[in-house]
């Protein structure tokens, strides 16, 4: 019996050690961002650090839908830049936000390829037999994937391309799948196609009349509300400097 009590004590001690470390507070500013921002936001954070060298910022990229689920389940993110404003709105409805969701950019999608000249490709061409694999982001939880699907539906090729679709976990994953050649063609964010390494290949900008707008919204979470840095960074996103970067990556800044 004494062995069991000793074990019990040991386990209790371990548990205690666990929870005491859980109590550490605040820490760095954590930004959750949609994958289309991967390169643009890195540049903006660099600019922000130039202005405030002491800032401690971590950016975590993923699909907007997945990050929304994570925040609902308690993920410690302070600011959330979504590829679609519906996700911040959902968080607001759950009472997990400090600020009103607001639009920071409008995204665009493009056809891009590592092997073909995408500039000469149209959505209709995707149905041709010459193209065997097309990558888009998972429409269920990645806004860029949903818009790509809408565009293909509007172009009337969605049914025809079904058998050659592959789905990336998020839009950056989709771009990587296309870049690696695993998929011949990808429908990705203009912001990613504008990244220097991908920009060496041409792209075809998809008419934004073919899909719902990619209204990208951000929100400061309930957790971020306690950090002045969160509000400061949100304000920085509205500056000329940040807008310039966003525009360079192909985002449209709303009036």
């Amino acid at each position, binding site marked *: 019996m004494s062995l069991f009590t000793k074990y019990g004590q040991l386990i209790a001690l371990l548990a205690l050690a666990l929870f005491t470390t859980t109590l550490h507070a605040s820490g760095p500013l954590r930004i959750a961002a949609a994958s289309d921002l991967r390169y643009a936001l890195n540049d903006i954070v660099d600019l922000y650090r130039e202005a405030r060298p002491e800032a401690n910022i*971590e950016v975590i990229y993923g699909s907007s839908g997945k990050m929304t689920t994570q925040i609902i389940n308690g993920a410690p993110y302070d600011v959330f830049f979504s590829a679609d404003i519906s996700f911040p709105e959902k968080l607001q409805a759950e009472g997990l936000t400090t600020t009103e969701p607001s639009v920071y950019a409008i995204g665009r999608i493009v056809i891009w390829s590592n092997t073909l000249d995408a500039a000469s490709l149209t959505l209709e061409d995707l149905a041709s037999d010459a193209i065997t694999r097309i990558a888009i982001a998972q429409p269920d939880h990645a806004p860029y994937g949903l818009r790509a699907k809408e565009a293909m539906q509007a172009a009337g090729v969605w049914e025809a391309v079904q058998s050659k679709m592959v789905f990336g976990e998020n839009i950056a994953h989709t*771009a990587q799948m296309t870049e690696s050649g695993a998929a011949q063609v990808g429908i990705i964010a203009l912001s990613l196609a504008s990244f220097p390494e991908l920009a060496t290949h041409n792209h075809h900008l998809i008419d934004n009349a073919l899909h719902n707008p990619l209204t990208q919204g951000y929100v400061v979470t309930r957790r971020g509300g306690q950090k002045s840095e969160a509000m400061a960074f949100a304000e920085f996103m509205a500056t000329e400097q940040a807008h310039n970067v966003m525009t360079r990556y192909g985002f449209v800044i709303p009036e």
Partner: protein
Amino acid sequence: MFTLGPAEWQAIEVTFRLCLYTTLILLVLATPLAWWLANGRSHSRVVVQAVVALPLVLPPTVLGFYLLLALGPRGVVGKTLEDLGFHHLAFTFEGILIASVIYSMPFAVQPLTEAFKNLGRRPVEVASSLGAGALDRFRTVILPLTRGGFVVAATLTFAHTLGEFGVILMLGGSIPGETKVLSVLIYDHAEGMNYAAAHSLSLMLLIFAFVTLFVVYSITRRFRVANL
């Protein structure tokens, strides 16, 4: 080739810490459990054995999903902790530590159960008749005679935790310094098309995993001979 920046070092530190804690906790938990599985007579043993082995066959996402639900602020565990004034455990180091402990459980329990079965009850009965109490028996008889099992259990647990990805991705949220382990960082690098960094880390893990397994297999061979 090996260009490790601060982000890489941070991930290495988190990974190493996770592997180490998981191994230590599991050795403490798995020892009595494995003893019971090897020597107990209760019929519930089979059930427990099946439960312990579940992570071997379940997709990591299943475990990650349920843990996320349980440990998050709305889950049973997470909510209770919050009510008690603690922080919930989703997206924390402690959260992925719990996940790793569960996920690597079979890798600690099975070699130990096997070692204890091979040991049999006899040496323990003998030591008992010679006046050794439970802890004394563990220290002077069980431990020295099943050393090989403990080394294998520890190494496999450590190595398996190192290779963990799905559960941590679901439950950890890839937070630098907290839940961003090497496997997640590699995924991140690959997604960001930062292939050079993905390469150096992957190669490092590959070599480490090989060395670990090599050590495990040499040990199992050596101890099987020595233990006769």
